[in-house]
């Protein structure tokens, strides 16, 4: 067993062993769990923010009466909606970082160490 978890020299493809182990890993339940965890966050979040953004743009184009509703002082719905896009973007970014640190990184680190060290399961 080697103790060389880092990469090969630039210019060389990953060693053949790693390739073979990666192919086996692709159907490993732990890898399937990692992929499922990633998709479980990423797919709904992407659909949500894309719909939320498109709703904003479509309303800016087609629902100007609604968007011009005055809320407080000079603040109208259009500005509030725009500012909420900032809030949702920052929020999703922070939520994803927390989720990835907790649910993705530890598992991905384990699998990577195992793949690169060539440990048998």
């Amino acid at each position: 067993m080697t103790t060389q978890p880092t990469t090969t020299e630039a210019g060389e493809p990953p060693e053949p062993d790693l390739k073979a182990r990666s192919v086996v890993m692709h159907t490993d339940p732990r890898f399937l769990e990692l992929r499922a965890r990633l998709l479980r966050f990423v797919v709904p979040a992407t659909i949500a923010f894309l719909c939320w953004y498109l709703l904003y743009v479509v309303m800016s184009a087609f629902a100007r009466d609604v968007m011009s509703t005055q809320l407080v002082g000079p603040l109208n719905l259009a500005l509030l909606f725009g500012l909420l896009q900032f809030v949702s973007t920052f929020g999703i970014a922070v939520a994803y970082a927390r989720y990835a640190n907790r649910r993705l990184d530890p598992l991905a680190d384990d699998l990577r160490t195992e793949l690169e060290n060539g440990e048998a399961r």
Partner: protein
Amino acid sequence: MNVLAQADVSSEGRLITVVLFTVMIAVTLLITVWASRRVNSASDFHSGGRGFSGIQNGFAIGSDYMSAASFLGIAGTIALFGYDGFLYSIGFLVAWLVALLLVAELLRNSGRYTMADVLSYRMRQRPVRTAASVSTLTVSIFYLLAQMVGAGALIALLLGIQPGETYLGMSADTAKIAGIVVVGILMIVYVTFGGMTGTTWVQIIKAGMLMGGAALLTIMVLAVYNFNFAALMNDAAEASGVGAAFLEPGQVYGREVAGDAWQTMVNKLDLISLGLALVLGTAGLPHILIRFYTVPDAKTARKSVNWGIGLIGTFYLMTLVLGFGAAAMVGRDAITAQNAAGNTAAPQLAEEVGAHFGGDLLAAVMLALIAAVAFAAILSTVAGLTIASSSSLAHDFYNNVLRRGQASERDEIRVAKMAAFGVGTIAIVLAVFAQNLNVAFLVALAFAIAASANLPTILLSLFWKRFNTTGALAGIYGGLLAAVGLVFFSPVVSGKTDADGNSLSLFPAGVDFAWFPLENPALASVPIGLLCAVVGTLASRETDPARFAELQVRALTGAGAEGAANH
């Protein structure tokens, strides 16, 4: 309050501007000299040795993205048209979630130097790398051309050279050309000698200056209004001449044309098409993608995108204050007298608030400071585009297509430097010839190509097992041709005139071969690109499940990913 027209930029003020520009150039060249000693391997040249931290790369990401065009352009659009400038900026920000959630980490794990590394991983190398290289060069050169043509005009404006007057022996027209040439030469020098290491440090410094300059100006504007943002908004709306409509969508994008329901509908669909291009295009821009390779691992790539999102979001919020501030304090007439598109709104605002707090001297200092920030912004964005082009030419086309991956690192670096020189020279020549053409549409086109050709094929490579070489080629070329073709036959290239019959298109008035009504093609070209990729895939029987398994395991776990170089 509009006492200071820029026509009487004091000569001291201009001197400060010139001194600051010179200091900027000197500092960036010193960085380049320092970096050139550290560029020894291909990894150093293309990826800065992959040793940058999340914060550093986050600043560089922000720097690549917040060009002078977006700093001065968005502030100017808000100053002249209010809400729509803000609407425009939001697409640029939300787009980063696509990069964060779907692209940054997976790309970092599976590629080495270029976008093509990921696209070609499980495909036949040479055709896919060629296609990716064509797409990379098209996007980068279009974007570069728009930036450089803008740079020439901006430098003339920042130096305050009016038509008919000369400064340092330059008229406004020669200053424009001199600006293009100087910017072009500097970007070639940064990239050729400093590689990604030097370019990244230039970008980090620029982002620091941009954020600092914008923050200072924002605080000063708010201080004028005793930090009462509502009062600022009211003043801006009142000064705009359109009242409350200034704070609502519809002054620029999706404009309603009285009595013309068709054109109104076209304008509104155009807005949605633009929004789609911005939000899906960012994560397919080659110069953005290669930034993810400059960090040691996927986790750092994620951190750097989050830093980028924080910086870019904060910056656009400040731009909103600056735009409203310019509308209220400088005023529409004074801005359009300088530049019809409003590009001088931010420097003019700096002068105005400077005068408010410290008289003529502070006015001159603030103007020079913001002009220097804009100058730094020009330099760093064009450098990022040049390195994206040269890396793709050297790594994808020269090494992997022509030499079938057998070229030595030294050869690859040598070709990359030659490519940077070649691309830079071509960009200078094209920009000088295009300097009086309306090329602003090229930025939106670059985003549309990235959204139609690059992003779909990257995602299908990573997630669709059946995807294959034919599909990748069809997707890249199909999306690219659809975006470019539709724009060619749109009103931005021919057939659009103003009320007096003057051309608003690339071609002069009288030439009209436009049949595609939208100025932004993404609404049609993204589905076309995706469809081409799917149909192309199904038309070929090629599959390689083992390579797909390998790519996906590598992308998600980071096993076998390139690590940081040891220096």
